[in-house]
């Protein structure tokens, strides 16, 4: 028997020696999770999402379609004086127009999607020095203002982590009421295989006298461009 198996046997022994705890104290031990009703009854999920995220000092830019998203992002990039923007591959919202627009504005746009081993070092440095990352969220949670990313080789996790400014595309239809709904929207296969991240507002700390400071290690600013229709 391996150490691990021996240890498991000891744990079984430990549990066996003492009977299971009282029902009233430890709750029912039935396996099936009971279902709670959704935590928000808001029918207007995009509005709730925006309100929650803004209360965490994130910004939401509401646009009707992908074309307007391109304008909004280019304008944002200009006002923030961004020099370079890292991107991955498109998810649902086509990035072509957006990239084109950013380049028209004289901003360097580079991709970190599907990186061969020999280019990793170089692109890591470039990502560390760029001014913003642009990536689409796979879904979002209205009740907490949370963005959910399912990073893949096409859209690596550093995109929403390393650059000081994070610009996130979000299709308004992909907003779910609460955290419990995320699993059903993404599917457990996606959440089992990829380095999924739930991101709720800019990176923050309250370690000094409980004062909230943004940009502890991750992005200092978070902009969500919410696209109402892909048409």
């Amino acid at each position: 028997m391996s150490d691990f198996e021996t240890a498991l046997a000891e744990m079984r022994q430990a549990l066996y020696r003492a009977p299971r705890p009282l029902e009233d104290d430890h709750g029912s031990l039935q396996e099936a999770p009971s279902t709670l009703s959704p935590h928000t009854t808001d029918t207007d999920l995009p509005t709730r999402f925006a309100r929650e995220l803004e209360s965490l000092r994130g910004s939401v830019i509401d646009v009707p379609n992908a074309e307007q998203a391109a304008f909004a992002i280019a304008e944002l990039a200009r006002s923030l004086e961004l020099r370079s923007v890292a991107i991955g591959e498109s998810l649902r919202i086509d990035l072509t127009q957006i990239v084109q627009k950013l380049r028209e504005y004289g901003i360097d746009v580079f991709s970190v999607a599907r990186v061969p081993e020999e280019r990793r070092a170089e692109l890591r440095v470039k990502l560390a020095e760029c001014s913003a990352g642009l990536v689409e969220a796979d879904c979002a949670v209205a009740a907490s203002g949370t963005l959910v990313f399912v990073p893949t080789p096409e859209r690596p996790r550093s995109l929403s982590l390393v650059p000081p400014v994070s610009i996130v595309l979000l299709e308004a239809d992909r907003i779910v009421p609460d955290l419990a709904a995320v699993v059903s929207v993404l599917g457990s296969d996606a959440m089992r295989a990829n380095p999924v991240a739930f991101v709720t507002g800019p990176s923050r700390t309250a370690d000094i006298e409980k004062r909230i400071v943004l940009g502890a290690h991750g992005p200092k600013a978070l902009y969500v461009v919410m696209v109402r229709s892909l048409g």
Partner: protein
Amino acid sequence: MMEPNPAAFYRASEKTVADEALRRKLEAATGRHLEHVAQMAAAFPPYYQEKAEARRVKAEAINRLPDLLAEFKRNFEAKGGRLFFARDAAQARNYIVELARAKKAKLVVKGKSMATEEIELNDALLKDGVEVLETDLGEYIVQLRGERPSHIITPAIHLSKEDIGRLFHEKLQSPYSEDPEALTATARQHLRAKFFAADMGIVGVNFLIAETGSLVLVENEGNGRMSTTLPDVVVAVTGIEKVIPRLADLSHFLEVLARTATGQKLTAYVNFVNGPRRQYELDGPRELHLVLLDNGRTRMLADPVLREALYCLRCGACLNVCPIYRRVGGHAYGTVYPGPIGSIISPALVHNGQTAHLAFASTLCGACKDICPVSINIPRILLHLRWLATEEGLPITWPAGPARIRASARRAVWLLSRPKLARMLSRLAGMLLRPLAHDGYLRWLPPPFTAWTKYRDFPLPGSGPNGASQRRAKETTDRADSEVRL
């Protein structure tokens, strides 16, 4: 670091209580916690339902622990993770030190992890010539000071912004500032380059999901995500009790954890670590290791009362509401895990009997149980540990208090060990004092008891709840744990 013992705890408590500045800092940091959680719960009606769900899942997880760990291991290894089971702290330390040696690691960045504090990992790595950097801001601050965290989730709770300003000025040669924004920016700048240069990242874990083989890290700063994303080798260290059965269970914990710990709806980051990086992936570790730590936890499992302490999510809320912690601070306990939860888990996890006295350092007020996101019955476990310590005759010697208190205690012991006489005197006092009582309470007592009634009313002896409990005591000849036993 002093060894924990009653005398050291007593002296350290006295010192903190006398330190006006430190008390103010503790009060400011913990004082409004209950209020914040209450406000948050009022704004989120499903809070108590979610707490009950989280507790139900934990009860199930601990009852099925061996099976869930086996399932977790299968799924974790299927994705290319490597699991090492460590029976004790030394095995865990050796595995990580050996690994650092094999990888020729020079620099390690660490995410926040109480488990690595528990196994005293940093010293072992430093001794082996590896530079170890804490990256959580609070942990980074206490590391620069050569201290231990004084709170589970707010490690630098005992320091003011001025303390930290001076520290950074001295150790990092940054211009003096006491502005939290500027201080955070200084730390960010110093640590940014280290994340990219690090050979190894070491992190703690909040949840292991058996069904999917995932590690889940909950944090606010992004340093946990950096530490698991940028270095080539990532080592996660966690206790066996962190496993939960299913992915669908996770939301119950996420709904209560941040709300209870910090009053947030959700932390800024919840990270899933699902195996090493894949082909064409820019980031993620080439190797992912998990050190699964027992270190006394199976002993806790074998005790049906203590077992419940394994539900703990390490949210730190019980510290914030504890009247003892709030007066004496985290360092006084002399243990890695301070506060109410520390008093019940330290005896099994770390010090082998040396911390039994901490079970007595509690008023049993129950605030910890009420705030706990999984409603661990901490007062009951404290009573249980007191009973164990007494049964086993553990030598717990408190330093002598002032002579007057010693004398009163001697008289009380003399009287209370003669229950018949005590009851008779109590009834007699009740009869004599009845004319002075209002609603069963006395607002004034004759000397030498006047000092008591100066600050609080005294229940009329032999009546009310007091009398009732005396009648109960008469009927029950059992030892003191009768109300504790399952």
